[in-house]
C-alpha cells in the first residue's frame, strides 16, 4: 500500500471540525460547544476534534445569518480550508435567515455564496441533532475521499 492511500485511510479516523460564527447570536455556538466539551455529548467519540486553524479543518460548521459586515471575512476563512471540505449550516439563520430574514444587515442565506452540504435547522438545534449532522457530514466526507468504511 502506498503512502498516500495509507494516509487517507488513517485520516478517516479524524475529521477535524472548524467553527465559523457568521454573525450568530451565540445560541448555536453554545450548543456546538456543548456537543464537544461536556462529557454527555462527547463528539470526540466520532474522532472529531475542534481545531483553531482553518488549514487543518475537514468539516466546517457555520452559524449565523451571514451579516453584510462579516461576509467577506467568512468567505476568506472558508477559502483557506483545504479540499475536500464539508460545509454544515448549523441553526436556522445560515439556512434561511431565520428570524433575521430580509433584515437590512443580512446578506444570507449562506448558500448564496458557499455550497452547503448538510443543514441542521433549529433555533438552536439540540446537541443530539448537531451530532446527527456531524455523522451525516462524516459519511459525505468519506464518500468525497473515496474511502468507504
Amino acid at each position, binding site marked *: 500500500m502506498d503512502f498516500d492511500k495509507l494516509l487517507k485511510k488513517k485520516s478517516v479516523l479524524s475529521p477535524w471540525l472548524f467553527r465559523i460564527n457568521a454573525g450568530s447570536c451565540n445560541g448555536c455556538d453554545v450548543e456546538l460547544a456543548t456537543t464537544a466539551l461536556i462529557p*454527555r455529548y462527547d463528539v470526540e467519540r466520532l474522532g472529531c476534534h475542534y481545531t483553531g486553524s482553518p488549514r487543518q479543518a475537514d468539516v466546517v460548521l457555520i452559524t449565523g445569518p451571514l451579516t453584510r459586515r462579516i461576509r467577506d471575512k467568512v468567505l476568506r476563512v472558508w477559502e483557506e480550508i483545504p479540499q475536500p471540505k464539508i460545509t454544515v449550516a448549523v441553526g*436556522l439563520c445560515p439556512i*434561511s435567515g431565520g428570524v433575521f430574514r430580509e433584515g437590512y444587515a443580512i446578506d444570507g442565506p449562506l448558500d448564496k455564496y458557499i455550497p452547503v452540504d448538510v443543514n*441542521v435547522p433549529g*433555533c438552536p438545534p439540540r446537541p*443530539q*441533532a448537531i451530532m446527527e449532522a456531524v455523522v451525516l457530514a462524516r459519511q459525505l466526507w468519506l464518500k468525497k475521499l473515496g474511502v468507504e468504511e
Partner: protein
Amino acid sequence: MASYLKILLRNLIQGPSTDPFPAGPTFEPDSIRGKIRIDPELCMGCGICVHNCVSNALHLERREDGHTLTCWDNLCCRCATCVMFCPMKAITLLPDWHTAHYQDDKYARIEQKSVTYEPCSVCGKKMRPVPAALLKKLYAGKTDVDAERLTHVCPDCRQLEDSKRNIGQLPA
C-alpha cells in the same frame, strides 16, 4: 473527604455519563418543540398564525374554493406562537427533533395542508364546512338545533336562521 469518596464510588458503579446517542437511544424532554403539524380538519383559514409568525415561516393562500396553509420547516423557529394564538387548536408541535438533512432536501421539508370549500346547502355559496366540534361549542345547551345539518350552512344563512329562531323568544 468522605463525601468525595461517596461521589467517586457512585461514579464507579454508575459508569460513564456519556449519552450513547449516535449508536444508541437518547432521552427527550416532554416539552420539546419540534416539527409543526397542521390539522386540516380544524383549520378555518383565519390567518392569525401567519399574522403572529415570528420568522414568516407560515404562508396562507386563500382561493375561491379553499385555502392552503404552508410552513417551511427550515424557517420555523419553533417558538410555538402559532400554537398559542390558534383559536381552533389546529396547530401542534411534534416532539420530532431529528432535523439534520442533506442540502438536496432543503426545500422539500414543508408542512402543507389544504382545505376544500363546499357549497352552502341553503344559498349555494362556497363556504368552509364548519367542524362539528366547533358547532357543538357554539350551540351548547340548545336542543332544538340540528348541529349535523349546520356544518354545511354558510355564516350568513346561519345568522338568518338563528335570528328567525330567536325572534319569538325575545323577552317582552
